[in-house]
């Protein structure tokens, strides 16, 4: 029923499915009507990463750090101010590349709020069939038949669910519908924007298992946005850590969780609840809220909450540097000769 993923594979296995370069979005801040200030909220400020085919890349960070904005920028639901999105080697909106429409047919999103993301006045079958019917001009009958197949694929019996309305389902069932809807266009990349965050733990586990099965069966690639570090650790191959619209650390899941190198990542991991009584949750290094994104701190954006902040941190924004085999960190302490007194001495991680 589903096209094997390789038939669409234009760039070859080595070509990353998604490359994001220097993505930027500054929203005008809401001032009073008469204020002349041109303040902007720097929601996403120069984000670059790539997603290899078949991988799951986790994006973590506190709320307001630009995770969801990044997701919407990737799908061009919000127009980026600057930056490139390259899907399977083809620039989106670039000359000779693919258009936003083609991109959306291959990149779909599952939203956090399972209720608000389903049309309350449409039956489940209509909701799933909408995309294929309108975007791909699939005849209604065929689209509905396929909706039944998709319902089965996400573990819901079509005869019981196709004719029902979203409010008649539970949160977990609705999130399955959301996944079926996203899969209806046969995408290659699925953005999961806090897709399991609103669910009970037991339901969350079911949905995560479903996602793992689908990834294996359909050869999907996931961009998994979450604030839940345990879940991200469980599902991801790579992890990207964001802070105030910038990436502070990125790397393989093992590297990030075993040797977190950015003070922010270290603080996040310390705040992570643990089931192991010998490894009790330590007091977090983080205090207070993230600074106002309208006037973010100069230099390193984390310096106002960082225990190791020095003069150079206020002056120079640290660049994302490769420290070992794809493990990238944006911190002056990682760069010998950066001017930071601890530069070059790898700061202590968890182990």
């Amino acid at each position, binding site marked *: 029923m589903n096209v094997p993923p390789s038939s669409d594979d234009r760039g070859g296995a080595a070509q990353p499915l998604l490359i994001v370069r220097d993505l930027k979005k500054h929203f005008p801040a809401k001032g009073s009507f008469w204020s002349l200030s041109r303040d902007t909220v720097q929601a996403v400020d120069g984000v670059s990463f790539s997603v290899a085919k078949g991988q799951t890349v986790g994006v973590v960070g506190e709320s307001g750090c630009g995770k969801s904005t990044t997701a919407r920028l990737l799908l061009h639901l919000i127009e980026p101010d600057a930056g490139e999105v390259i899907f399977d080697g083809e620039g989106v909106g670039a000359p000779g590349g693919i258009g936003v429409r083609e991109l*959306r047919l291959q990149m779909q*999103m599952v939203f956090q709020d399972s209720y608000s993301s389903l*049309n309350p*006045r449409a039956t489940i079958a*209509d909701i799933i069939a*909408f995309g294929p019917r309108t975007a791909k001009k699939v005849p209604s009958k065929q689209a509905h038949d396929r909706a039944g197949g998709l319902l089965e694929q996400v573990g819901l019996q079509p005869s019981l669910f196709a004719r029902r309305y979203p*409010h008649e*389902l539970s949160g977990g069932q609705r999130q399955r519908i959301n996944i079926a*809807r996203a899969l209806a266009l046969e995408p290659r990349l699925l953005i999961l924007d806090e897709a399991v965050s609103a669910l009970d733990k037991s339901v969350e586990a079911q949905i995560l298992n479903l996602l793992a099965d689908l990834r294996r069966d359909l050869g999907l690639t996931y961009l998994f946005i979450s604030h839940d570090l345990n879940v991200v650790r469980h599902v991801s191959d790579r992890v990207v850590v964001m802070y105030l619209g910038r990436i502070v650390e990125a790397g393989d899941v093992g590297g990030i969780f075993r040797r977190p190198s950015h003070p922010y990542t270290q603080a996040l991991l310390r705040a992570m609840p643990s089931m192991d009584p010998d490894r009790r949750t330590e007091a977090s290094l983080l205090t207070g809220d993230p600074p106002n994104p309208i006037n973010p701190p100069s230099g390193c954006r984390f310096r106002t909450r960082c225990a190791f902040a020095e003069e150079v941190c206020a002056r120079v924004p640290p660049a994302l540097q490769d420290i070992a085999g794809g493990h990238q960190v944006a911190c002056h302490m990682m760069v010998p000769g950066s001017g930071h007194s601890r530069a070059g001495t790898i700061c202590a991680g968890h182990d």
Partner: protein
Amino acid sequence: MADVSTLQPIILPDTSAGAEPRSYWSTVGERLAHDRITLAVGAVLLCVILLAIFAPWAATHDPLQGSVMRRLKPIGTPGFFLGTDETGRDIWSRLVYGGRLSLICGVTPVALATLIGGTLGLVAGIGGRVVNMAIMRVVDVFYAFPSVLLAIAICGVIGAGIGNTILSLMVVFTPPIVRVTESLTAQVKNRDFVEAARASAAPLHAIISHQILPNVLGGMLVYATSLVGIGIILSAGLSFLGLGVTPPNPEWGLMLNALRQAIFVNPIVAALPGVAIVITSLCFNLLSDGLRSAMDIKLPS
């Protein structure tokens, strides 16, 4: 809300795998079919409309032909079972014929206003800041006038007559419909399911017709239906003031005006056109209530 269906799957009566896909509007239809009050109200309204349409057959006398010999006969007079008016014309026949003009004056302006105001509201709700500002600020100007005064003023300027009554009432009804539609659209537009529809590469017209309209049309229709009653009363008011339908044409508001002098002689007969207005506008209001609950599919039917 503890919904049992979230705990265990309810086996629907028709679980055959090949069951016809149902749409939202067919569900609304099913729900209306089970709503006895709305069905009864609909039947009454249908009678009123049929009587108006088939007035030449339903009427027992010529509505314009009076006789000084039989002025202000009471209800139950042989041959004139609802009595006669101040010039001896048969009340029943005049009510039946008057229904034509009253219904036209009540329904047409609302229908036109819904079409125009609904479109403007949808455009204002979906469009950007500039479009929204342009449409809504013009609407605000109309809001500055009390609706009755505005209707009177327009009719006073362009003159009496049915066409002008319809036109002036349409102008009065359009701004509130624009505002209702705009606020409904703006609410729906920002919901995640519209964003999901955009993300599915669907063209704009499909998003409007499949995602936005079904969630806006309900509230819009309910509001419009409730305006029909007001329309009938306002047009009656215009006729009463001599700005709407001109005598001797039968129209409920005009009849009420003419029979005003007879209120002490034959109060029940004098009140009959008012009763017709009340029944009709009450029916439209009840119908809009029924529509509202049928369209809110989260309520049990």
